């Protein structure tokens, strides 16, 4: 590709509507145009879920790993729609299905979760995004999400 090496800096807050305490992406790694994106979330003991999950044994909830995956995927969908010119302000991304998710290792405070996502199928406004999560280069989770749209509230 002629624009190889040209990477775009993506600001998370410009692409996600989630805010504290539900923002699960800290940083997007420089994005090379395409259907692939990498993002990072640093798991901190300061986060509210650790008050109860679990008081004597803080472990990052698997559902929040899915949320982190979903937010990374939402950024990619957003970027893709922008590139395609198919973005619609009146529609809102929602998860339609959580498919084939596997959790291979538990996550703990201090872990740096790196999520890699790819759009593998598109049908109208619906898309399937597949990906994997890594900590220190080791795979900790993988799965697919089905994204759809609803009318924005």
């Amino acid at each position, binding site marked *: 590709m002629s624009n190889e090496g040209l990477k775009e800096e993506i600001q998370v807050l410009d692409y996600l509507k989630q805010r504290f305490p539900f923002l699960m992406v800290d940083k997007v790694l420089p994005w090379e145009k395409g259907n692939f994106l990498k993002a990072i979330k640093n798991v901190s003991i300061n986060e509210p879920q650790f008050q109860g999950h679990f008081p004597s044994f803080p472990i990052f909830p698997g559902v929040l790993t899915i949320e982190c995956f979903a937010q990374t995927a939402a950024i990619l969908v957003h970027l893709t729609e922008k590139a395609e010119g198919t973005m619609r302000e009146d529609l809102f991304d929602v998860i*339609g*299905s959580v*498919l084939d998710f596997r959790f291979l290792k538990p996550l703990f405070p201090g872990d740096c979760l790196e999520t890699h996502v790819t759009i593998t*199928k*598109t*049908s*109208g406004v619906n898309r399937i995004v597949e990906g994997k999560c890594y900590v220190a280069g080791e795979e900790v989770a993988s799965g697919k999400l089905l994204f759809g749209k609803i009318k924005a509230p």
Partner: protein
Amino acid sequence: MEAIEIKLKIKGIVAGMFDLQTDNIPETKPFPEMAKYDSMRALEFLAKLENEFGVLIDPDLLQKMATVESASQVISELLHVK
């Protein structure tokens, strides 16, 4: 894979998606007439077919796969040309 086996597997997927018994799934009733069916479920159906049969399915083929009968025909063709 025999056509009857393909149909049975498709019925299993449909049963799981729509909370039905495998025996009660009509082969020629279009999915859009089923409760809970929408465009998102269509893409989910496609993903589950790909997993089950190990084939890649172009989303454009979804229009041709509106019933158990027609979906099994498409899958048979994909399996044979693989």
